[in-house]
């Protein structure tokens, strides 16, 4: 008896001629996610991916694989000899601790040499269950226990399907540079883009001493959590103090928040281009704070050419928090360290900034900022998580 995880993918099998590319990528991502487990072997078969795994590593493997995007559901299964009496015996042994009142047997015969046809396998196994377990009945729709038997060269036996996140395999949509602040929103935005196949390149702005080493460590921790879904994660920590203080020094107080963001976008775009990323991603949600009004977003959008994705734009804070809790970033996000968004906040920030005014306000910066930006990018710390 061996253990496997059956992996089902939905959407990606619809992708026509690119199908093989998607499946290969998914298999590669699964291998990368499970690489710390010794017993794992990933096999592609018709319509499925099968992960061979030892009993000891099964639980840990199941937990990890559920985070891989592109998977619709997984089932822990056991593989046995395709011999009816072995199948019957093993099945009864497997279900003996399960509590259920209704059940069905779903049998599939892939090996046409097997002496019974699918309906007969189902009937005979069902009868065996009824005989052994008291007070249960067979129902075809929504049974509490669905015993699945797939008879191929060997036979797969399973009765659980764990729903996963779906989406597309990370990497199939290319890269995007994600602005990570360390708050609740940006890790969620990253996760949502990764779900659509984006490989994120994280960009964090570090303004020591206005933000602390702990605040930086927090962003690294968040990136690490998200990397469990994305496989790997390249994170740039950009030293931003010099530029930020220059902005505060030279620009009108009411506009500093937006101007700071405009320079962050410019730097993120430069890093995106360095890494072959085709877009930027932010955690902005319309109206959440003063800088996230339509005017505010327009003013920050104005300085970049790459498309800017804002997957949280129509979401309420509570909805975002729910996802953050689900993906495990919430607890880390709410640790109380200063980040660049909370310091230097003007008393009355501009909520309806006009692009023209911003451009005017940035004029004093133009003489000094270019070498500063170059230096900031050159001196960025790069983490490969």
């Amino acid at each position, binding site marked *: 008896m061996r253990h496997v995880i059956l992996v089902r993918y939905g959407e990606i099998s619809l992708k026509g001629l690119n199908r093989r590319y998607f499946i290969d990528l998914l298999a590669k991502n699964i291998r990368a996610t499970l690489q710390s487990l010794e017993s794992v072997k990933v096999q592609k078969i018709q319509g499925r991916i099968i992960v061979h795994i030892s009993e000891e590593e099964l639980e840990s493997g199941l937990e990890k694989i559920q985070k891989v995007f592109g998977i619709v559901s997984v089932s822990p299964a056991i593989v046995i000899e395709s011999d009816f009496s072995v199948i019957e015996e093993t099945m009864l042994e497997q279900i003996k601790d399960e509590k259920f009142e209704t059940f069905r047997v779903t049998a599939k015969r892939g090996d046409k040499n097997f002496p019974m046809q699918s309906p007969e396998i189902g009937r005979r196994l069902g009868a065996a269950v009824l005989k052994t377990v008291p007070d249960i009945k067979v129902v075809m729709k929504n049974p509490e226990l669905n015993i699945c038997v797939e008879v191929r060269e060997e036979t797969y036996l399973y009765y659980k399907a764990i729903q996963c996140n779906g989406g597309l395999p990370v990497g199939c949509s290319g890269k995007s540079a994600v602005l990570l602040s360390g708050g609740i929103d940006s890790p969620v935005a990253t996760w949502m883009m990764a779900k659509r196949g984006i490989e994120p390149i994280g960009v964090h702005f570090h303004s*020591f*001493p*206005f*933000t*602390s*080493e702990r605040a930086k460590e927090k962003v690294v921790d968040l990136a690490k959590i998200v990397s469990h879904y994305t496989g790997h994660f390249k994170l740039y920590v950009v030293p931003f103090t010099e530029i930020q*203080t220059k902005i*505060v*020094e030279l620009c009108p*107080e009411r506009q500093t928040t937006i101007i700071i963001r405009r320079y962050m976008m410019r730097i993120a775009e430069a890093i995106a281009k360095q890494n072959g990323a085709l877009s930027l991603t932010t955690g902005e949600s319309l109206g959440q704070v003063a800088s996230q009004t339509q005017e505010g977003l327009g003013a920050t959008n104005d300085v970049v050419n790459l498309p800017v994705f804002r997957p949280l734009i129509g979401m309420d804070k509570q909805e975002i928090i729910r996802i953050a809790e689900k993906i495990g970033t919430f607890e880390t996000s709410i640790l*109380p*360290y*200063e980040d660049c968004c909370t*310091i*230097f906040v003007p008393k009355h920030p501009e909520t309806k900034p006009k692009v023209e005014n911003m451009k005017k306000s940035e004029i004093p910066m133009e003489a000094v900022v270019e070498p500063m930006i170059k230096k900031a990018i050159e001196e960025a710390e790069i983490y490969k998580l």
Partner: protein
Amino acid sequence: MDEIYLDNAATTKPLNEVIEVMCDHLKTNYGNPSSLHSKGFKAEKTVKSARKKIAESIQAAPEEIFFTSGGSESDNTIIRGITDLARGKDYNLVTTVIEHPAILEVYKAYETKGIDVRYLNVQQNGQIALEEIKQKVDQKTLICSIMGVNNEIGSVNDLVVFGKTIKAINPHCVFHTDYVQGYMKIPLNVKQAGLDAVTICAHKIGGPKGIGALYIRKGLNVNPLILGGGQEKGFRSGTENVPSIVGFAKAVEIKNSSINDRFEKVLKLKNRMTVYFNEKGQDVKINGKDHSSPYILSLSFRGIKAEVLLHALEAMGIYVSTGSACSSNKKKHQYVLEAIGLEESYREGTIRISFSEDNTEEEIDQVIQKIEETVTQLRLLTKYRTKEKK
């Protein structure tokens, strides 16, 4: 970059002698004092001699010293150990509004259970007025905890006078002090102060972390917090932390002979700083100015975020603290500064500088200069205009 460590109220650098003696004991004297064989006996003798040394340092008897994991455990033990023995509900507990959370939170927990807990208010200089004690301590007071030296602003309470006052009102009231910031810095004679219980710990005096002690006056009945194998005469179960106990005693041995010299030296350092900020500082307040420990200086700069100042100094190798280390990342925990009536605009700009005798005058001058520069720079950046001229 040379580092200038000015966060000695949070913890101190362990003394070399402490590290050495601890390593020796970890390597060779690893026996369990409860074991019957000679290795156990040797460890037991080690603990015994350490206990004697620590007892002598506060004029107590060895059997009055109980080892714990540190200040927080000692505080919890005495307050719970006295209160949990009380029958009925006809009693009250007394403490001050500026205690360390290890005390305050315990009393608050009893308060939520419906017990009458009375809080002594402080004056602007951070001291408790005798009048407060006379008003709040009465015949039914079970225990009264008053800290010797406040950890955030360094204000010192006169425990001898307080002890006499409390005992005159109610001779049965247990008088407890958290002396963590005063121990080996300002001499304390527990008998003279009429103290029934004293909390001390090792890592504020060059000893290791994770070891402390509770002095309990002979004859006082205290309920143990941790039950088990019956170590520390059944008062505190758990295998004795022999290496740390040895390290603790070593630190005490070294520090005990130099209390007065160190006091004078550190006082000079603190004065150097206070004189400067008094004369030249703009919009800066010195908290707990009179009657405060020379080891702690609390400075409040208006228009500054203390955390930013702290990190800016850190970048120059200067280590200070905001408020107290234990609560400094909880923003709303500024109750001590609030209690002494400091306005909010000053509170959020408060740093704590805590000295040791290893600091030098040159270091202090350098720090004064760096603070001055950084504060000016930060105020410029936040477009702060000084409002008060001194």
